[in-house]
């Protein structure tokens, strides 16, 4: 999710919250006679609704509001990062590009060869202003965390060498499988 839309949500939430506090306070103050007016009367308004510009104004305003609302909703969808990036060494003699998603996924699959790790996948995501190579691995319930951690650190270091992007950060998420699928040791040898 983009940081801009979170800021927009915060601004909207603050405005609405302050409006509710103000309205609540005003209702209480008015009920107990702290406000000078005894009665508020508004409308009915007939002049604007019969004006020639009214249908166009409401129609245009409505369409704009619907589009803005849909845009606001769409901005909450998860952000997909384009994995294609330029490699150093590209010049007039040719561009060098690579798909970072593939490299991160390969790193996860390489990590999944560690005993105790069942499978792995990876992708590049944008998270709070960082470009993150995120590896997600499922481990067996019996997996040794020290072994998994050592393998993950080694793979992350290899990934840093392979991708060689100074802006990329790495994260390995582990998930524990509900049931163990490792081959049980024979009871009798």
């Amino acid at each position: 999710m983009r940081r801009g839309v979170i800021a927009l949500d915060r601004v909207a939430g603050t405005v609405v919250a302050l409006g509710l506090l103000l309205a609540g306070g005003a209702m209480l103050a008015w009920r107990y006679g702290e406000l000078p007016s005894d009665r508020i009367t508004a409308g009915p308004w007939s002049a604007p609704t019969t004006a020639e510009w009214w249908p166009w104004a409401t129609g245009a305003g409505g369409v704009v509001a619907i589009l803005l609302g849909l845009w606001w909703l769409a901005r909450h969808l998860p952000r997909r990062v384009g994995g294609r990036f330029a490699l150093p060494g590209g010049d007039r003699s040719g561009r060098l590009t690579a798909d970072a998603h593939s490299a991160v996924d390969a790193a996860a699959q390489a990590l999944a060869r560690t005993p105790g790790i069942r499978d792995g996948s990876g992708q590049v995501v944008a998270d709070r202003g960082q470009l993150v190579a995120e590896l997600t691995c499922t481990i067996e319930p019996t997996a040794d965390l020290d072994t998994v951690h050592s393998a993950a650190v080694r793979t992350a270091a290899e990934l840093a060498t392979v991708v060689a992007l100074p802006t990329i950060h790495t994260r390995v998420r582990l998930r524990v499988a509900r049931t163990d699928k490792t081959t049980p040791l024979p009871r009798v040898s």
Partner: protein
Amino acid sequence: MADHSTPGAHPLAPSDVLLEHADELVGSTTDAHASDGLEPVDGPASGVSEPSAIAFGGDRGRLEITQRAVERIVEITARRHPAVARQSAVLGRGLPKARAVVAGQRVSLHLETAITWPNPLADTATNLRQTITTAVEDLTGLGVDRADITVTAVDASQVSTSTAPGEAVAAKQPVGGPAVVWVGFVGAFALVLAGCVAVREMAVATGLTDGASWLARGFELEPAGWMVPSGIFAAVVGVLLLVVTFKRRRRTHHAVGGQDGLVWLRSADVARLACDSARQVDSVTAVAGRSRRKRVNLTVTTFGEPSRVSTDVTAVVEDRLRTITPVPQTRIAVREE
């Protein structure tokens, strides 16, 4: 491209490639006039249908190198590179895949390829560009103006350990989504709803729909008893909304293996590890567990002596979870069978 030097790790012997794959390059060279008895010409023949490089040798005949021949040279050269993985076209796009544009005696190349893990992307692509450029120039005599390399896949099916791993930079700690997004969802729906009301007003005003205008209605208010609970309710909702708006994101994961911040485990998975460890204790027949960030609650069913089982389970679980941070507090409830 002016550089004709052979790279240090050149994997290709060009003459071998041509000999082995001579059948794949059919059509790349034609002696157009020797067989049909035509007179040799000193200019291009009419009816050339595709881009090609044509060398005119006077009465010795004509050499025509087609675009496809250049592409095949690039693909075969790339396949022989030790860092390139061949990808079958049956399972997806066949890689390596080359495109060549031939114009006169110059050529522009583009190669899409897969490489094997853990070869560095930039170094491999640079070396590959040098290799295919040299091969095309050596084998065809054409000059390469440009060679673009795109690494579209990395193959991890044959893993070897890299010799000089770098240092990974840890990303920020994983956290849950911000609570304020719900405010955003509600606000966006409210905006869409307001837009629908405005469009309805337009429809009513233009006579497309029957009914009265909602926005033209007036209202009249005076102090009343319902304003006290309503005012309190609005104020409370406003305060809660402020709390939700500025609530910090919840930490959802435990760090594994110290403070390097690279490897993370969810709280639910901590409970699964704890349950697995508890099942290994003697006399335990069943284990159920739940975990929050700072606490693991286990319910252990046993036919053994409860205090011994509780002590053993606590010791085993704490030993299993010693590498995660923060270390959750373990609570054991023993149920006798």
